[in-house]
């Protein structure tokens, strides 16, 4: 027993020396995490997209259409970038990505209005840019309702009705929207909560593959096993301890930055959320071992690992919900550890759900670790026989 600890210590010290002899991977990984954290937290500081630029096409060109435009400009959430009397001009501005919506005031707007002939407004939004287009759509909807409401109010006032009575005639039915767990509709909270752990998982995966695969590439796996007294388990434990420590520091740091420094809300248990993140990190590390075990060539395992983990961002379903995917794709999504972490995050941070809802996903993350144990015999053989191509 005593020898086992001595051997683990020997492998650990050997690994530290190797890490500092080739610091690029290590520093790059930690650097990437720091850069990504800084990037995503500063990119969406406001958290919500507003004031998307739009164009108004004024085909009427009367005093009343100009007054309408003037009123719209005074509305805080509306940013009119272009006022023109030519629709093609506005359309071209949209094709150039300068505006996201076009609001058309029709010809004869004024004369129709006076004659109660229901002039029709048209508005156009681009859906080549989803967030920009949606925001512009909401703005223009507000503009139409403003015009509509203002007009009814004028007519009713002329009929001599008091304002509070008018208000309820114009708006007899109202929807109160409640955005559960993210009452500000903050895009940053929504996006960064899953993207940053995802990037961290990617780093865990790549660095683990690299740490093991590098021994195969450099044909140093015999020296590694020798330091471990020929024991595969000791060799793996000693090697992975320093990396795991780094991952855990990054994981706790990431958690701390998101939920303490940036103040992202956690409605459920912070401890279980953090536990989920740590399980996710171990699962990605285990996935790295599985991949290098199945493909004991450094570059193959790295390439496949990168492709696999990048898909996790889409398959986890945090942008495009999993329920909208095709059934086979939905099944595949469970092979992504990030999918399970995302669901634990939803349960713990957003829904404050009972722990039973998170447990299946915690077990699924554990299954990735069992998978890594299953490929161990194969990886062990690869370390002993070095029977795979070098590059």
């Amino acid at each position, binding site marked *: 027993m005593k020898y086992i600890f001595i051997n683990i210590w020997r492998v650990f010290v050997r690994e530290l020396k190797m890490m500092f002899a080739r610091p690029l991977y290590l520093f790059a990984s930690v650097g990437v995490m720091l850069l990504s954290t800084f990037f995503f937290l500063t990119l969406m500081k406001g958290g919500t997209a507003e004031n998307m630029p739009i164009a108004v096409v004024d085909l009427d060109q009367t005093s009343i259409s100009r007054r309408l435009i003037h009123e719209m400009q005074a509305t805080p959430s509306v940013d009119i970038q272009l006022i023109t009397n030519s629709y093609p001009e506005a359309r071209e501005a949209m094709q150039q*990505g300068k505006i996201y919506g076009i609001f058309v005031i029709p010809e004869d707007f004024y004369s129709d209005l006076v004659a109660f002939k229901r002039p029709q407004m048209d508005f156009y939004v681009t859906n080549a840019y989803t967030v920009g287009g949606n925001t512009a759509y909401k703005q223009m909807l507000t503009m139409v309702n403003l015009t509509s409401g203002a007009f009814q109010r004028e007519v009713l006032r002329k009929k001599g009705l008091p304002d509070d009575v008018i208000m309820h*005639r114009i708006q007899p*039915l109202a929807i109160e929207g*409640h955005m559960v767990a993210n009452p500000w509709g903050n895009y940053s909270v929504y996006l960064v909560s899953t993207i940053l752990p995802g990037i961290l998982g990617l780093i865990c995966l790549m660095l683990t593959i690299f740490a093991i695969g590098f021994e195969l590439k450099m044909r140093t796996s015999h020296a590694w096993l020798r330091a471990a007294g020929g024991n595969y388990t000791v060799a793996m434990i000693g090697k992975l301890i320093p990396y795991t420590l780094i991952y855990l520091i990054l994981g706790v740091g990431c958690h701390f930055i998101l939920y303490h420094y940036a103040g992202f809300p956690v409605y459920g248990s912070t401890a279980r959320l953090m536990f989920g993140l740590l399980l996710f990190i171990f699962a990605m590390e285990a996935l790295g071992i599985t991949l290098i075990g199945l493909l004991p060539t450094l570059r*193959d395992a790295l390439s496949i690992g990168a492709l696999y983990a990048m898909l996790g961002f889409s398959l986890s379903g945090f*942008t495009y919900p999993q329920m909208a995917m095709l059934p086979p794709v939905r099944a595949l999504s469970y092979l992504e550890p990030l999918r399970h972490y995302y669901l634990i995050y939803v349960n713990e941070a957003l829904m404050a759900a009972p722990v039973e809802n998170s447990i299946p996903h915690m077990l699924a993350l554990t299954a990735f670790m069992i998978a890594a144990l299953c490929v161990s015999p194969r990886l062990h053989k690869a370390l002993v026989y070095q029977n795979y191509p070098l590059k």
Partner: protein
Amino acid sequence: MIKAFINELYRIFKDPGVMVIFIVATLAYPLIYKAIYWNEQITNVPVAVVDLSNSEQSREFLHQWNATPDIRLTHTCTSMSEAEQLLREQKVHGIIYFPRDFANQLADPLGQAHISLYCDMSSFLYMKAIYLSCNNVMLESMRNIQIDRYEQMGMDKEFAWSLVQDAPYTETALFSPTGGYGSFLIPAVLMLILHQTLFFGICMLGGTAREENIDQYSIRSLIGRSLAYFLIYFGLAVILLGALPRLFDLPHIGSFWDIVLLIVPYILAIIFFSLCVSVFIRNRESGLVLLISSSLIFLFMAGISWPKEMVPDAWWYIACCIPYTHGAHAFIHINSMGASLATTSTEYIALWILTAAYFLLACGLFYIRKKKLITEN
């Protein structure tokens, strides 16, 4: 120069790692993304109902709402806490709540009735589906109520109708008829795949050559190698950008030849950009760190998922130095919005400027590198 060109082609085709990235990843990734976003839109989002008013009006509202494709009323609950439990367990992604006085408020000519809507924010698309469809149903029924009330006030029906319809409007989503998530994201992802695989491949080849001490830093080699990459990627880009949107039924209203003309500076700018970066790459695998870290950052910095107007200036200036930013916008303008090359000239010219700038920078870096190697030897 021709020797360097042939040599590089030989090295690419001999190197299975590079071939996987250049050919397999480039062609497989679009298929996978298309499969993920196949349905384009989210439909039938499950919603729970808490109807305390239990009135004809609320039932009529629910009936109309349930008929929209966006949502499906799956659970009827007797209390909010029951519905909240369903939301917590993610069995539903929204709750609609009618208060007890809903029908009375509607019947009262001075009343205002309220509906409460609770949306699951774990994905913004749930909220969009629930909120917009409910809002549309609400506007429709509101109009009928308004007309009733005006009639009660003694207006004639025709006048009441014109009053509530005083500013009717049509809304048109331009360019992509389905307006789905895939139609929006996949064109941007296609450009990113080209950018990142070429970027990574070049860094990988540069790292390998450096591990094997191959002299690669002459200007002749720079041009020859660039030609080799260009040859392969021009073909790939025509397939990805020209053919795939047509095959995949994605937006493709742009001119094919404009896209071909766009590909030229886009690929060239990426090649010279990557060659500049590759000078600093010492190992074959190092490029991978760049690949994984830069992909998401490039995508978000370019202002595609997150509108470019909302990207902070400092990040935007950096984004302008990356070929992807201009390439992706130009491709979306042409392919998805039917712009001509002249219309999107700002981005097109920017790509040529980047091509020239990175070419000169690459020449300079290669020259410095070569000098250093000579003095080292």
